C-alpha cells in the first residue's frame, strides 16, 4: 500500500510540475502572440497582413500536429534547450510548444470580443496602439483571457498524460505502465480519480478568478 501511495504522490507531483510550468510559459508567450494575431488583422489597430499571415500559418501548423508526434519531433529542440530529451523537465518543452498556439488563438478570440466602439473611443482621444492594448484591450478582455488559461490548463493536463512517451512520468504514464501493462486496475482507478479531481479543481479555481475579475461589470 505504501508503495502504491508513493507512486501516486510522485506521479501527481510530476503532473502538477509539468502542467504548471507549461501553463506559465504558454501564457507568457501565448497571450502576447494572441495580441499580435488580433491587432495585425485586417481593420485592426496595427494591421499588417504579412505578419498576420505568417503568425496565423505557424499557429495552424503547430495546432494540427498530434501531440504525441510533436513530443518526438521536438526531441532535438528539447535537448538543445534543456540539455536532455527525457524526463519530466524535458516534457515541459513540447507541452509548452503545443499550448502556446492554443493560448494564442484563445487570447485572440477573447480580444475580438472587446467592443469595437471602445477601441474607436480610445482612438478618438488620441491613444497610441500601446495604450489601446494596455488600457483597453487587455483589461477589458481579462476575465475572458482568464477563462482561456483555464481551458488551456485542463488541456495540458490531458496532454501531460502522454509525456510517458519521452519518459516524462506523471499520472498518465503511471496508469499506462502500472494500471494497464502490469494489470493493476486499482492504480488505474486512482490515477483517473486524481486526474478527475485535478480538472475539477482547476475549473473551479478558473471560474473563481474569472468571476473576481469581472466583478462590477
Amino acid at each position, binding site marked *: 500500500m505504501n508503495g502504491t501511495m508513493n507512486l501516486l504522490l510522485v506521479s501527481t507531483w510530476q503532473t502538477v510540475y509539468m502542467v504548471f510550468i507549461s501553463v506559465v510559459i504558454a501564457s507568457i508567450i501565448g497571450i502576447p502572440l494572441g495580441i499580435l494575431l488580433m491587432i495585425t488583422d485586417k481593420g485592426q489597430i496595427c494591421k499588417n497582413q504579412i505578419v498576420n499571415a505568417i503568425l496565423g500559418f505557424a499557429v495552424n501548423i503547430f495546432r494540427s500536429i498530434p501531440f504525441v508526434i510533436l513530443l518526438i519531433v521536438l526531441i532535438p529542440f528539447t535537448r538543445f534547450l534543456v540539455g536532455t530529451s527525457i524526463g519530466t523537465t524535458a516534457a515541459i518543452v513540447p507541452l509548452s510548444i503545443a499550448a502556446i498556439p492554443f493560448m494564442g488563438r484563445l487570447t485572440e478570440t477573447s480580444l475580438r470580443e472587446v*467592443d469595437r*466602439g*471602445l477601441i*474607436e*473611443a*480610445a*482612438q*478618438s*482621444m*488620441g*491613444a*497610441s496602439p500601446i*495604450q489601446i492594448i494596455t*488600457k*483597453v484591450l487587455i*483589461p*477589458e478582455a*481579462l476575465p475572458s483571457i482568464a477563462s482561456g488559461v483555464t481551458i488551456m490548463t485542463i488541456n495540458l493536463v490531458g496532454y501531460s498524460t502522454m509525456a510517458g512517451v519521452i519518459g516524462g512520468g506523471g499520472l498518465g504514464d503511471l496508469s499506462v505502465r502500472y494500471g494497464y501493462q502490469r494489470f493493476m486496475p486499482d492504480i488505474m482507478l486512482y490515477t483517473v480519480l486524481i486526474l478527475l479531481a485535478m480538472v475539477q479543481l482547476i475549473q473551479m479555481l478558473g471560474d473563481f478568478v474569472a468571476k473576481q475579475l469581472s466583478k*462590477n*461589470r
Partner: protein
Amino acid sequence: MISIKNLTKVYHSDSGDVMALEGVNLHIRKGEIFGVIGLSGAGKSTLLRCINMLEKPTSGSVEIDGVEMTSLAPGDLKEMRKKIGMIFQHFNLLNYRNVRGNVAFPLEIAGLDKKAINQKVERLLELVGLSDKAESFPSQLSGGQKQRVGIARALANDPKVLLCDEATSALDPQTTLSILNLLKDINKKLGITMVIITHEMNVIKHICDSMAVIENSRVVEQGPLLEIFANPKTDTAKKFLNSITMSELPEELKDRIRSFSSYHMDGKIVKIGFFGNVTAEPIISTLVKKFDVDANILFGNVDHIQGTPYGTLVLELRGNNGSVDRAIEHLKNLGLKLEVI
C-alpha cells in the same frame, strides 16, 4: 472653425466600391452647434469620423482651426485628437473602470500626473452632475448617466470641438432632453463648437444653430436653422421638417378633416403654415371682425425654435358674398403660407 471641402470617401470591398461621401462641403463656425441630419446609411456617421480621421477621407480637405487634418503625421494627429472630444450612441465606456476611472482615461492618455487628474475628474463630474456616482461602474448606471460620463470624458482634455455621434438615439425622450440641455449648457459655458449627427429632427430643433441635410452621400442643403425651417428647399429637408412641424398633413388627418366639415358646403378649408412673428397678430379675431367670416379651428400645432414660433393651423372658414375669398387674400398678404384643401 471646421471647414470641409470636397470631401469624398469611398469604401473598397470585394463586391465593389461603395461611395459613402461625395463632394461634401461644410462650413462650421466657431462656437456654434451644427446639426447634420440624414437617414441611416446616408453617410452622416462617416462624415463625422472624417472630421477626426477615424475614417481617412479618400479625397478632399478637412480643416480644423486652420490645421489641415488629412495630411497630419500620426503623432500630430494624436495630439490634435486630444482637442476633439467625441461621444457615442452606445457610450463606449470601459466596463472595467468605474465612473472616475473612465473620466480619468483620456487624461492618463494625455500623460497628466495623478494629482492633476484627480482634480480635473472632480470638476468634470460636477459639470455633468455625477459627483455622487464617481465610484459606480457603467453596468450600474442608466443610459442617461452613461452618456453624462461619456460627455465628461470627452471634455477632459478641454477640447475645442465636440463630435456627437447619435448621442441621444439610444435614450428615451425625457433623457434625450436632459442630455441635449446639458450639451447646450456646455456649449454656452465653454464655447465649444459642436457637431451633432442625428436622424431625429427634434434633436436639431432643440439645440442646433445651423444644420445640414445629408442624403445619398451628399449634403443637399445647409444653412442657419431658422432659414431652413422657414424655407426648406429640398424634399428631404421638407420631410424631416414635417416630422415635427406637420406642415404636410397626413392623409388620415386630411380625410378626417374633410368628413368632419362635409356638410358645410359653403365654407372653405385652409391650411396655414406660419413661421415667426406673424403669429403674434390676432389672426382669427381679425378674420371674424374685419371680414365677417366664421373661423373654426380643425387642427393646429404651435412650437418654438430658438424663441421663434412656428406651426400649422387648419381652419374652416364660412361666410357669404365672397367674404371667405377676401379673408384668404388678407391672410396671403400677411405673408402666411396658405393652401386651400
